[in-house]
């Protein structure tokens, strides 16, 4: 880890340079992070509302061995190969997480923790094995653990942006259906919606978002980008459509801010910064949000206290 000046005048200079878009690569990083933040928050919203908030954590951790295996097999880090490897092992993780509680005594929470830690151990083992190998192009593989947006290539970012836009588009198109399924599965089934297919599709979108997020946010903290924005957004408004918009804005803003930080301090990992920015948004919403924030509820409680009790 290289050292960097924490408070320095050059940070401000770099910020200005960043916003003048002098660096084409930085612009791509910005676009990628914002799109990733938005798509992850929207997809994550449905998982949180289905009371399955930490599924993203397990999916992200299970992507790691796939990336490593893909590298061992094809000895390349080209974005499509990485995407393929990560997706296949994430889906395997999804299957294991689903299968364990249904067929054994193991409870869902333990199944999630087992999947997460087992796949992560596999991935780390493969990574340490690769680092002992004598092959070219292995540097940077460990960057997917904590994310390093500044180190990404424009071609990675183009794939990322395309996938993120596709995910956002699909969610917008099928929003009505998913809303119905999320809030009333039985009714959705009774009017002839193929609920199972939409579930699988949503899981697939989630895997896709997690996988494209690996290089920016990293395996370890991807869960936060999926679950924090919607959790913060729920304090702002009761309606799902509005919640999704607020979540997308929070996710996009945190992507924007962390891309900026990543440009100023390229040696530090991006993922943790993004999570800290999100945590800031969460705390702010928790206290100040107009619908169910702490302040508003306090005021409401105070005004509802009836004079009879005095």
């Amino acid at each position, binding site marked *: 880890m290289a050292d960097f000046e924490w408070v320095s005048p050059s940070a401000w200079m770099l910020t200005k340079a960043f916003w003048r878009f002098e660096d084409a690569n930085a612009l791509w990083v910005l676009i990628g992070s914002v799109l990733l933040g938005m798509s992850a928050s929207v997809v994550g919203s449905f998982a949180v509302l289905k009371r399955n908030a930490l599924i993203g954590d397990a999916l992200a951790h299970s992507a790691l061995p796939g990336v490593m295996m893909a590298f061992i097999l094809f000895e390349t880090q080209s974005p499509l190969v990485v995407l393929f490897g990560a997706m296949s092992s994430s889906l395997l993780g999804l299957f294991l997480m689903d299968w364990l509680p249904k067929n054994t005594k193991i409870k869902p929470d333990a199944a999630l*923790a087992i999947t997460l830690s087992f796949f992560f151990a*596999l991935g780390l083992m493969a990574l340490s094995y690769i680092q002992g190998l004598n092959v070219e192009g292995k540097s940077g593989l460990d960057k997917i653990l904590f994310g390093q947006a500044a180190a990404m290539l424009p071609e990675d970012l183009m794939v990322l942006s395309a996938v993120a836009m596709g995910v956002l588009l699909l969610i917008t198109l099928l929003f009505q259906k998913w809303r119905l399924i999320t809030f009333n599965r039985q009714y959705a089934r009774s009017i002839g919606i193929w609920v199972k297919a939409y579930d699988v599709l949503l899981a697939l979108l989630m895997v896709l978002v997690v996988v494209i997020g690996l290089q920016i946010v990293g395996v370890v903290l991807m869960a936060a980008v999926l679950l924090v924005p919607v959790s913060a957004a729920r304090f702002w408004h009761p309606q799902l459509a509005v919640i999704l918009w607020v979540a997308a804005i929070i996710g996009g803003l945190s992507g924007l801010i962390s891309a900026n930080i990543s440009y100023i301090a390229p040696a530090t990992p991006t993922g943790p910064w993004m999570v800290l920015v999100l945590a800031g948004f969460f705390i702010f919403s928790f206290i100040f949000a107009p619908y169910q924030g702490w302040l508003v509820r306090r005021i409401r409680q105070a005004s509802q206290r009836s004079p009879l009790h005095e």
Partner: protein
Amino acid sequence: MNDIWILATASLVASSCALVGVLLVLRRLSLLGDAISHSVLLGIVLAYLVMGERSEMAMMVGAVLMGLLTAGLTQLLQKNPHIQSDVSIGVVFTSFFALGVVLIAIYAGQIDLDQECVLYGEIAFVPFDTVVWGEQSLGPRAFWLALAVFLINVVVIGVAFERFKLMAFHPLLALSLGLSVPFWHAMLMTLVSLTTVASFDAVGAILVVALLVIPASSAYLVATSLKAMMGWALVYAQLSVLLGYGLAVWLDSAIAASIGVMAGGLLLLTLAIQQLLKPKASQLNLS
């Protein structure tokens, strides 16, 4: 000799994790265990920054405080009707862990920690950091730390075995019998935090989860009583350490990760055997 120290340390760490893990799995707190093992990183980093040097005591205190803070904060957040339990866990531990990683990156020059050792642990280097008493070397520091925590775990769980059992299987009865459930819950969280600190050196912050949850879950599949489950968890943990070490030597891979993989492998093996032995539904109908 070095191999023996590494194996002994790993085995103690795995045993501590297995014992505490059993209680976590039974109380369906696996995810809280996951969260605490991540948050402990922040406690360790803060202890480094406050003390300015490596101090086991400060690390312990920092880690336990952070572990309890995580457990407390998640419970506090859950009181809000708009936050589910898994959301509260996810928000708290990711923020703490992120803060820990960022602090490590910012104070890279001052802290003798890096992202590598957060992830892998440094069990291969355990034998080189020894405790010296007078002239004589007493063996690795991490070994003694792991031994101390293991003894604490054994003593606390041994003394309060019946209480933990009651809380695991019948929390409401425990409450009605006048057991101080919050106190014993906090005690369990303290044990988890202590175990995680002791494991941090050896296996890193993240693979602790594998050792906490996987051997205990394997034991859950085969055992029929709490005592037996703890016994089985210890057996699974020791097997994982031995096989994992062998795997690491064979593939020249990270020791801690290989131990985690073997723990998972043993769980899958147990599952496979159970599925094969399970009487088929069709056979049941015939009899």
